[in-house]
């Protein structure tokens, strides 16, 4: 590769460490890695390596450190914020050959897995023992645990069970210097700073996870999935509030509006209630008697709030059909629109009616259609902004509406991302949510882990921090005694 001596050196080192098929330099093959799930960002990496174990991976990262070459980790490439977007002069480190489930330890309620292991495979391995892995992103059939850890991924069931960060207890981790370190472990509360807590959700900017120790959760005795039809999202939202106010924490409460339902019907024929302005998918799980009692209450609360149809899934096939409509919703809008943006924002749940109304107004004035799918229980919105690339100005208009939705989230005290991450896509929005000091402080962590800024550079933060610099020193003494803030004793 002319003009990239660092990459050449890393390539050479990689060839010494990794079998030939795991070192890719051929441009045509490099191109297959040019994007993740957010496919309008594309960059062809200078080199792709597919290590088979942590030692090979650490060796490559060590060579990157030595030669100052940036590297980007990639799991399954399903990320929706451009987190795994390659660096043109860097190495893409792909974990797809690190797919061993190292241990399933039901007695300890833990599993130890390599980063390339597919999310659903952890549950498959644990189920025979009566356990499962709780975080369940809709992409769980293809996304990797390493990607989940990096994004702190959520799923429909995180309302009750929490996110990836609540389920990862330990990790083996390759620092941007190429050192293999242990963070956390199989037992809780490892002494020292909770570095693992910082690494989870850091989107590959602090190093690469080469093994994760995850919590396994006991399968519930009973699961009830209910599909509820309402005339409007307002009614559905009111039902959600009533359920939460009654002290019930369902495993999941998902909402879809009319346009999202239309798309799902077209794609997977999930047979949702006719003419519904909104549906809720509510799942209750736990001990059988408790679930039965909660079900009665949920049914009543939905009726009180105007539900016109309620369907209880009684067998796994029915339950799967209900979930199919919801889980396929992103892809389904492809049926009703040639192009779409999947937005991911969060609002306090109680702001739902107000924000939905504002989104409808945005859509009305701009003429851009928005289908709403969301994790209603925790206020995580996934507006799907529809457009047709081939029509002049539509992409820009959609982009504008999508950005305005994020502003709505921030205005209402929410977040610019609930689970898809900041990545490349939303780095520029970070200053709308955090001030300079906040971002500067977060980047102290970056400087501790990766002072040279070679681990997934350009993601998460709009402007990198120079790690040598000492920030905002306060000079001159404050007359604290006079102000009555300090006393000498």
């Amino acid at each position: 590769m002319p003009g990239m001596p660092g990459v050449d050196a890393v390539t050479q080192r990689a060839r010494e460490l990794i079998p030939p098929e795991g070192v890719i330099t051929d441009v045509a093959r490099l191109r297959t890695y040019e994007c993740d799930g957010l496919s309008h960002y594309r960059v062809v990496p200078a080199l792709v390596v597919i290590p088979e174990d942590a030692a090979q991976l650490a060796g490559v990262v060590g060579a990157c450190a030595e030669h100052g070459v940036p590297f980007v980790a990639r799991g399954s490439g399903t990320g929706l914020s451009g987190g795994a977007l390659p660096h043109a002069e860097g190495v893409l480190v792909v974990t797809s050959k690190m797919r061993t489930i190292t241990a399933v330890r039901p007695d300890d309620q833990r599993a130890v897995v390599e980063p390339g292991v597919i999310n659903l495979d952890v549950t498959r391995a644990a189920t025979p023992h009566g356990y499962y892995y709780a975080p369940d992103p809709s992409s769980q059939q293809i996304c990797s645990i390493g990607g989940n850890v990096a994004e702190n991924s959520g799923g429909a069931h995180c309302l009750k069970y929490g996110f990836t960060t609540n389920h990862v207890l330990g990790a083996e981790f390759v620092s941007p210097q190429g050192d293999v370190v242990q963070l956390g472990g199989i037992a809780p509360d490892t002494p020292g700073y909770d570095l693992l807590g910082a690494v989870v959700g850091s989107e590959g900017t602090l190093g690469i996870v080469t093994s994760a120790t995850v919590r396994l959760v006991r399968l519930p005795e009973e699961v009830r999935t209910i599909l509820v039809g309402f005339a409007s999202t307002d009614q559905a939202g009111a039902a959600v509030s009533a359920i939460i106010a009654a002290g019930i924490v369902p495993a999941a409460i998902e909402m879809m509006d009319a346009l999202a339902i239309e798309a799902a019907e077209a794609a997977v024929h999930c047979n949702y209630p006719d003419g519904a302005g909104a549906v809720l998918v509510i799942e209750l799980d736990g001990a059988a008697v408790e679930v039965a009692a909660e079900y009665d209450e949920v049914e009543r609360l939905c009726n009180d709030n105007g539900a016109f149809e309620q369907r209880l899934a009684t067998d796994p096939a029915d339950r799967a059909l209900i979930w199919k409509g919801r889980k396929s919703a992103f892809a389904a809008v492809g049926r009703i629109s040639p192009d779409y943006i999947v937005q991911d924002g969060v609002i306090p749940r109680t702001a739902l009616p107000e924000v939905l109304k504002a989104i409808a107004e945005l859509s009305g004035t701009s003429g851009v259609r928005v289908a709403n799918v969301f994790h209603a229980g925790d206020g995580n919105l996934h507006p799907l902004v529809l457009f047709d690339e081939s029509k002049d100005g539509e992409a820009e208009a959609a982009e504008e509406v999508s950005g305005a939705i994020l502003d709505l989230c921030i205005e209402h005290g929410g977040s610019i991302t609930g689970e898809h991450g900041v990545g490349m896509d939303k780095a520029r929005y970070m200053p709308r949510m955090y001030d300079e000091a906040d971002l500067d402080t977060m980047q102290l962590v970056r400087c501790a882990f990766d002072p040279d800024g070679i681990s997934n550079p350009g993601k998460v933060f709009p402007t990198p921090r120079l790690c040598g610099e000492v920030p905002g020193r306060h000079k001159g003494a404050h007359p604290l005694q006079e102000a009555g803030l300090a006393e000498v004793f």
Partner: protein
Amino acid sequence: MEEAHPTSTAEVAEVLGDATSRGLTVVARGRGTKQGWGMPPTSADLVVDLSGLARVLDHQAGDLIVDTQAGALLSDVQDVVGTERQRLVLEETVPGTTVGGALATNTSGPQRMFFGTARDLLIGVTVVRADGVVAKAGGRVVKNVAGYDLGKLVIGSYGTLAVITEAVFRLHPLPDVERWVVTPVDGPGRAHELAQAVVHSQAVPWAVEVDLPASGPGTLGVLLGGKAEGVADRAETVRRLLGDAAEVTDTTPPGWAAYPAGPVLLKLTFALSGLRDVLTAAREAGVHVRGSAGAGVVHAAADDAGALDALRAVCARHGGSVVVVDAPDDVKQAVDVWGPVPALDLMRRVKDQFDPEHRLAPGRFVGGI
């Protein structure tokens, strides 16, 4: 030693800015209930007393969140959110604890088994850095992956990274009823078997606690909470698992959520399957053990630190550790309070970034941080 009594984040920032320009070492204090924990700081020119930041700022019942100043008593937070039948599931293991103190020392109680610990409940945090800069991370919504999770870093950092001034937590509904199922156990073997039986049941236990004195019989207690019908049924399931001697009660068992008492307090962690070995080692060492059999975290009370090495060996075998939480200074000086700490080098680098002059509680934390 000086003391400062700020009443707001801005005032804490002013105090720390001033301490920076004067080069003072700083120790933060809530109500001082755990001030002796960790190693004694090697220097403390200024104590920043946070008891003036005692306000619970905002409770949004519909969103199940509370925003509070760090000097507020945990019990005050519970009183505020309790009016809407909600609670913060951060149990008070040391009476009089403040929010900031609980976070800085990462204390946890029995219900951590089901609800997790501070790291699972804290959704937003405001801190003041050693140099007086105010920074926030997280926010006021439960689900949020924007930026690094600084809250996790300051939890359990013993005031060595920054001073926590404000915290936002997710809340849970207060259960309609709570029931304990308690049975006597004659020793480690029985305690282990019963704990495993309950942990792996589908009765959704909220806590599985063991209390085993240095000698003689102990108890195993299981907490269940929720709606009345459900709890009654789950309690019955657990009672059957625990055997004939088990009793269902609606009163809190003695010693529940309290650390065992003794001059030396140890925190032992281990993978769940190690419970029998850990309890056996504790028995052999003659220490009283109490804690979360269902989470792999127990505390031991001892007269001295004589058992430390033996306990460390057995906990390490089960993937865990032993920390000397509290002890007379002479004991602390004589032993390795924190034990082996993996990734210490990275931790030092984090400390160096946040507090380059090592002025925040110097020496209190792992590896002399």
